[in-house]
């Protein structure tokens, strides 16, 4: 699965994107965050405040409870501030 990070999530994690093979136990965005948070202190810091984390699954906004099973691309980012 392709994972993307934007804004301060990208800065804290240190990479804009990465490819990861996920364990079958990871089915929702929440579980994906749990899994990534266990991948080191950078991830832990990035995902510490889950209230500030938004997710897009295959380039569509989604809830953290949404399924990521079969997704090609999952992106994490803070609330958007364009316009």
């Amino acid at each position, binding site marked *: 699965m392709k994972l993307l990070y934007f804004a301060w999530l990208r800065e804290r994690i240190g990479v804009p994107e990465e490819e990861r093979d996920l364990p079958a136990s990871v089915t929702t965005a929440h579980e994906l965050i749990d899994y990534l948070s266990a991948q080191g202190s950078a991830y832990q810091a990035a995902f510490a405040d889950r209230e500030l984390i938004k997710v*897009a699954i295959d*380039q569509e906004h989604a809830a953290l409870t949404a399924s990521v099973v079969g997704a090609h691309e999952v992106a994490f*980012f*803070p609330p*958007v*501030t*364009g*316009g």
Partner: protein
Amino acid sequence: MVRVEEDDFDLSTEVKKITDGRTDIGAVVSFTGLVRDFQNNADTPKPDQGQMTLEHYPGMTEKQLEQIEAEAHKRWPLSASLIIHRFGTLNPGDQIVLVLTASPHRQAAFEAAMFLMDWLKTKAPFWKKETGPEGEAWVAAKSDDDAAADKWS
């Protein structure tokens, strides 16, 4: 039409592209967003500071903006519309975003432009970072933007 680009835009040029050769458009509304100097309340303004960098999610941005635009055309009788959103590094006074709506009647053009801006503010994947005298800081989202978008749903 949707464009996501680093380059600046010219308002008249974009309006002319939409209206040229047509005589069924009675109303064109434009919204131009500009970079405000976020330090302009400081006692000593620092002219070398105040830059803003806009990061976005290529691919998703265009997709979201096209969805937002399609939704506006579903809700109002629009003759044409255009959304331009810039990314990259911008200075105070620079243009960030343009929303254009054209319709036979003014009410539709006004409402659609407001709708597009409210939705864009909460759905288009852009993030602003400000560079000030104390370093860089990501701009926090505003809850009144969520409230503005909610009123259309």
